[in-house]
């Protein structure tokens, strides 16, 4: 029994659940709750991307595109077709998954830099579409998002969203943990280490890659939808290249192939800029410095790096 509970796929969501509940008592005001909610949302997208990057060893520089699809689905669908925001979020996640499935087939045949460039181009296409189709998306200035109502109750306030996004994160981490422990997860790790060996072992490499690409796209879209609903407003910059890079940075900083690392990476990049505002002009310099120090000292990312330090297996 204890062994089952301590298995990573149960332990990780448990740790996160304790973190979400514990922080809710520790955070003094709505501002801190909002920052925490932003961490949960980013972490959700980063977990998805980490499945792709950390486990399957494929890179995507266009993930903000999927994030944008989720965000704009809950902005556009309720406004244009009076769809309920929750259904719109579902539609956004489906659309992102479907798109990932369609473009994933040709794109995932590419490797290394070529894959990076192809996903980059794909992400830019989505960002450009969003900022150019002003009649639908409000263009570069963005558009408002209808507030979510559930059974006549208007969902608002940083504390409410803190719990909703925290719950989403725990569920996301639980699903990811299960996926990693499943045959698909083992197949992914195998193809991460050596595609040829994986193929020889009888793994359908193309299919495994496509599966994880679609799943990670859905994670990003759900995170995008959550952000749009929390903010009540969307702008195209959440779909653009810089946001893709931010997500990749969170994965690498937190630790590739670590679900808790995804949360740590997201937490660092969301919380630090808030902390560093007191440095005014030196904010970006200090942020860059901290990131560099982390990468130099903890080469494999925060969580895996600390774990190997604690167990004395220094790489």
């Amino acid at each position: 029994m204890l062994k089952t509970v301590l298995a990573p796929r149960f332990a990780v969501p448990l740790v996160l659940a304790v973190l979400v509940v514990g922080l809710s008592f520790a955070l003094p005001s709505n501002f801190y709750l909002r920052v925490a909610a932003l961490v949960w949302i980013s972490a959700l997208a980063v977990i998805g991307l980490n499945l792709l990057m950390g486990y399957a060893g494929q890179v995507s520089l266009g993930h903000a595109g999927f994030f944008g699809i989720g965000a704009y689905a809950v902005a556009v669908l309720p406004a244009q077709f009076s769809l309920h925001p929750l259904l719109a979020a579902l539609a956004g996640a489906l659309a992102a998954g479907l798109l990932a499935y369609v473009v994933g087939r040709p794109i995932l045949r590419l490797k290394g830099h070529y894959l990076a460039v192809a996903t980059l181009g794909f992400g830019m296409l989505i960002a450009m579409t969003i900022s150019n189709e002003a009649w639908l998306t409000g263009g570069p200035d963005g558009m408002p998002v209808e507030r979510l109502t559930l059974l006549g109750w208007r969902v608002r306030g940083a504390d409410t969203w803190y719990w909703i996004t925290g719950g989403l994160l725990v569920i996301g981490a639980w699903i990811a943990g299960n996926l990693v422990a499943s045959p698909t997860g083992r197949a992914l790790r195998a193809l991460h280490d050596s595609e040829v060996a994986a193929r020889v072992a009888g793994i359908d490499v193309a299919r495994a890659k496509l599966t994880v690409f679609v799943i990670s796209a859905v994670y990003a879209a759900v995170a995008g939808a959550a952000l749009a609903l929390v903010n009540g407003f969307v702008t195209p910059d959440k779909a653009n290249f810089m946001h893709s890079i931010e997500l990749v940075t969170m994965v690498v900083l937190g630790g590739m192939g670590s679900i808790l690392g995804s949360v740590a990476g997201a937490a660092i990049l969301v919380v630090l800029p808030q902390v560093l505002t007191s440095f005014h002009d030196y904010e970006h310099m200090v942020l860059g410095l901290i990131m560099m120090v982390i990468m130099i000292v903890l080469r494999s990312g925060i969580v895996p790096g600390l774990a190997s330090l604690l167990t004395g297996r220094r790489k």
Partner: protein
Amino acid sequence: MARFAKYLGGAALLAGAAFAWSTAASAETIKIGASLAVTGPASFLGDPEAKTLEMYVAKINEAGGVNGKQLELVVYDDSADANKARTFATRLVEDDEVVAVVGGSTTGTTMAMIPVFEDAGIPFISLAGAVVIIDPVKEFTFKTPHTDKMACEKIFADLKARGLAKVGLISGTGGFGKSMREQCVSVVGDYGIEIVADETYGPGDSDMTPQLTNIKNAAGLQAVVNPGFGQGPAIVTRNYKQLGIDVPLYQSHGVASKSFIELAGDAAEGVRLPASALLVADKLPDSDPQKSVVADYKAAYEEATGQPVSTFGGHAYDGLMILVEAMKRAGSEDPKAIRGEIEKTTGFMGTAGVVNMSADDHLGLDLTAFRMLEIKGGDWALAE
């Protein structure tokens, strides 16, 4: 291991100290907030705005503050990211407990922040351009810059006065150009003017000759209007000259900076554009009621920063002064009282023009706020 622990300990201490940094609200200061795009793609807006606010808050404090209390300004840099702006808006309300907010450099950040301030009941004076900010009117939201719709109206009024009725439009597809093009198309009918050509170009385009050739070939063309921002209009202006199009060219207030004249060179000669009086502060006749305000601001800004004055900093000046006057009239720092007094602002002379606000006009500027300028000899000149 020890070395690592030192790093981590240091970082944790730093983070903890900064997070615990809560500037205790003292009864002797009035806190006002700002979230501006000081860095990033819109830093040309946020940077002069932040400098202006800091400079004038210091000046006001030197002169004794407001209602006998010192002002305390909290500025955050949202780098034009709407999500960051929203977080900073929450922070200003919840954590810093400001009584009023000036700023929001772009329309996107402003729109993202509005719900926070409306829910909290904190007066918010935006420095962004689009008309959606104040139309429909929101209880606590105001703005100081003239709208793109007013720029269109100013251009069309000038065209009408010159007897020109058939115009070609060439618009940038960036946020500014797109929004202004829509506004121009919506008001053009009021002036009996007809759009005979309607072309667009992308933000990164380096040659607009094809679009201009199409416009040149439009039957009965009498003038061309270029709603756009950044480098695009300078390229349009150069191509315009190269193609030898001889009808008048109108640019928008989006290019109202010296760098436009430098980029467009000789081709800029004779181009007209609507702009704030700030650009021609030293050329205004002494009888002009706006002269002292814009000349003083220009001198103060250029002395303090060593940089040429920009209209965007002027918007921040207007916002701060409207707020300060409202606080003086209200005699208190209650956000609701301040809001009520901001709405009653009448006859305020700012860098953008005379402001007369009312319950259904939270901008309060009229067309006289814009001056029609013409570029002559590589410098601005009043065309009226």
